[in-house]
C-alpha cells in the first residue's frame, strides 16, 4: 500500500467534494429530522385522536421499513406519480422522514421525563402553557435527550452513505468509484474511512460542547473561571465510561 496515494486521495478535489456532500446531506437531514421529531412528539400528546392516529401511522411506516427502501422508493417510485426530486433531495427527504420517526420517540421520552409537578409549578406562577414549555419543560428535556440524540446524529453521518445507491456523489460513492477506476481499494477506502472518523470525531466534540452548554452547573463553573475546552473534554471522556448514565435523575 502507498501512504502517498492515501494522502493524495485525502487532498483531492474529488474526495473533498464527496466529504462535503456527506456533511451537507447529514446536516440538512438532521435539521429536518429533529424538526419533524419535535412536531411528532408534540402531536403524539395531542388529545384530538385523528392527530394521534396519524402520528402513530407515521412512526409505524418509517420505523417499520428499511431506510434504504425509503430512499429508493422516493427516488424511483414517486416520479411515476409525477413527483420528482433530484437524487440529493430524494436522499435528504428519505433520511429526514426516517430520522423524524426516531427523533420523535427520543424527544417524547425527554418531554415525559420532566415531571408534571414542574409544569404545574410554572402554571401556578401565572406562566402560559407556551411559556412553561419554553422555559421549564424544554430546557430540562434537552439535557435528557442530548445523549441519545448524539447517537442518532453520529448514526446519520454513517447512514447517509446509503444515498450512494441513487448515485448521489457522497464520500462512499466517490471512494468506491476511485477505487474501481485505479484498482486501489485499500488506499481509496482508507481515505474515505479517515474522513468518516474525522467527521464523527467532530460530531462527538459538538455533542460534548452542547452537553456542557446545557449543564447548569457547568455554566456556574465557567463563571468561576474553568476553561470551556477542559469541560468539554471531561464531558466526552466521562460519557464513554458512563454512557450518559449521569444524566439519569
Amino acid at each position, binding site marked *: 500500500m502507498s501512504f502517498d496515494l492515501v494522502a493524495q486521495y485525502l487532498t483531492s478535489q474529488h474526495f473533498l467534494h464527496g466529504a462535503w456532500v456527506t456533511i451537507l446531506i447529514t446536516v440538512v437531514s438532521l435539521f429536518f429530522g429533529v424538526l419533524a421529531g419535535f412536531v411528532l412528539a408534540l402531536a403524539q400528546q395531542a388529545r384530538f385522536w385523528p392527530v394521534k392516529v396519524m402520528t402513530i401511522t407515521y412512526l409505524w411506516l418509517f420505523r417499520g421499513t428499511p431506510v434504504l427502501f425509503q430512499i429508493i422508493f422516493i427516488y424511483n417510485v414517486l416520479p411515476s406519480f409525477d413527483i420528482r426530486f433530484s437524487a440529493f433531495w430524494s436522499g435528504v427527504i428519505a433520511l429526514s422522514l426516517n430520522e423524524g420517526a426516531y427523533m420523535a420517540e427520543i424527544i417524547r421520552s425527554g418531554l415525559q421525563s420532566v415531571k408534571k*409537578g*414542574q409544569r*404545574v*409549578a410554572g402554571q401556578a406562577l401565572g406562566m402560559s402553557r407556551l411559556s412553561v414549555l419554553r422555559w421549564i419543560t424544554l430546557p430540562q428535556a434537552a439535557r435528557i435527550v442530548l445523549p441519545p440524540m448524539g447517537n442518532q446524529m453520529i448514526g446519520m453521518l454513517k447512514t447517509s452513505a446509503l444515498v450512494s445507491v441513487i448515485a448521489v456523489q457522497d464520500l462512499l460513492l466517490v471512494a468506491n468509484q476511485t477505487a474501481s477506476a485505479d484498482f486501489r481499494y485499500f488506499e481509496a477506502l482508507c481515505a474515505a474511512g479517515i474522513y468518516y472518523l474525522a467527521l464523527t470525531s467532530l460530531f462527538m466534540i459538538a455533542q460534548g460542547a452542547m452537553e456542557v452548554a446545557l449543564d447548569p452547573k457547568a455554566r456556574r463553573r465557567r463563571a468561576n473561571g474553568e476553561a470551556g475546552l477542559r469541560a468539554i473534554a471531561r464531558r466526552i471522556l466521562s460519557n464513554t465510561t458512563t454512557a450518559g448514565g449521569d444524566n439519569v435523575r
Partner: protein
Amino acid sequence: MSADQKILELVNVSKRFDTLDVLKNCNLRVAKGETIVLIGPSGSGKSTLLRCINLLEPPSDGSVLFEGHEISNDLRSGDRVRREVGMVFQNFELFQHLSAIENIMLAPMKVLGMSRHDARDLGQELLRKVHIPDRADHFPDELSGGQQQRVAIARALAMRPKIMLYDEPTSALDPEMIREVLDVMTELSNEGMTTVCVTHEMGFARRAADRIIFMEDGEILENAATEEFFGGRANERAQKFLSQILH
C-alpha cells in the same frame, strides 16, 4: 377584618373526577389579611379545594370570586389569577435546571417582563426574607429540604401575590427542618399576608391561624375561630380527628 373586606370567596364549589365527588358544595370566605388553616384526613379534598382557588383545577360547579370578581366562569383568566395567587407545594417543585435565585427570577422576567437586573435584586431581597441569602447560586439538589421549601416560598412571593396557598408545605420535610419553614410562613402571616394553608402542624395553626376549617369526604364540616376550635368547641368529628393527629 370585616366580611366586606373579603378577598376570596368560594360559593357552592363542587368538583367531580369522572364519577367521584371530591368536593361537595364548599363555601368559604377569606378576608384580606386572614390566615386560614385547612385540616382533615387524607383524601378529604383539601388539596383539590386549594387548587380550585387558583383554577389549577377548574371547579365542576359553583363559583370562585377573587376580589369580588367571578373568575371561575372564564378559564382563560386562570393565568391572570395565578399571577396574583402564590402557591407552595408539598414537594417544593423547584425548577431543577435553575439555581435558587434563577428560580425566583423566572416568573417576574417571563410573566411581568421585569429586567434581569431588577429580577436579580428582587431575588436577593426575597432570599434575605426567607433567611438564605447565601444560597443564591445553589441548585435545588444542593439545598436541604427546608432550604428548598423556603426558596419555593420566595419564588411565589416574587410575583407579589395578594394571597398565598400552601399545600402541606412541611409534609415532605425532615422534622428538624419543619420549624424553619413554619417560621417564615408565620412571619409572612404576621405581616398581613392572606394565607390559606393545608397542614397537620397544629402548633402552626394555634400560633398563626385566625380560623380553622375541617374537611371530610369533600365537605367543609367545621369553620371556627382558632380559640374556639382548640377550646373544645369544635364539632364531634373534628374533635375526633384532632385527638387522632395529636396522638
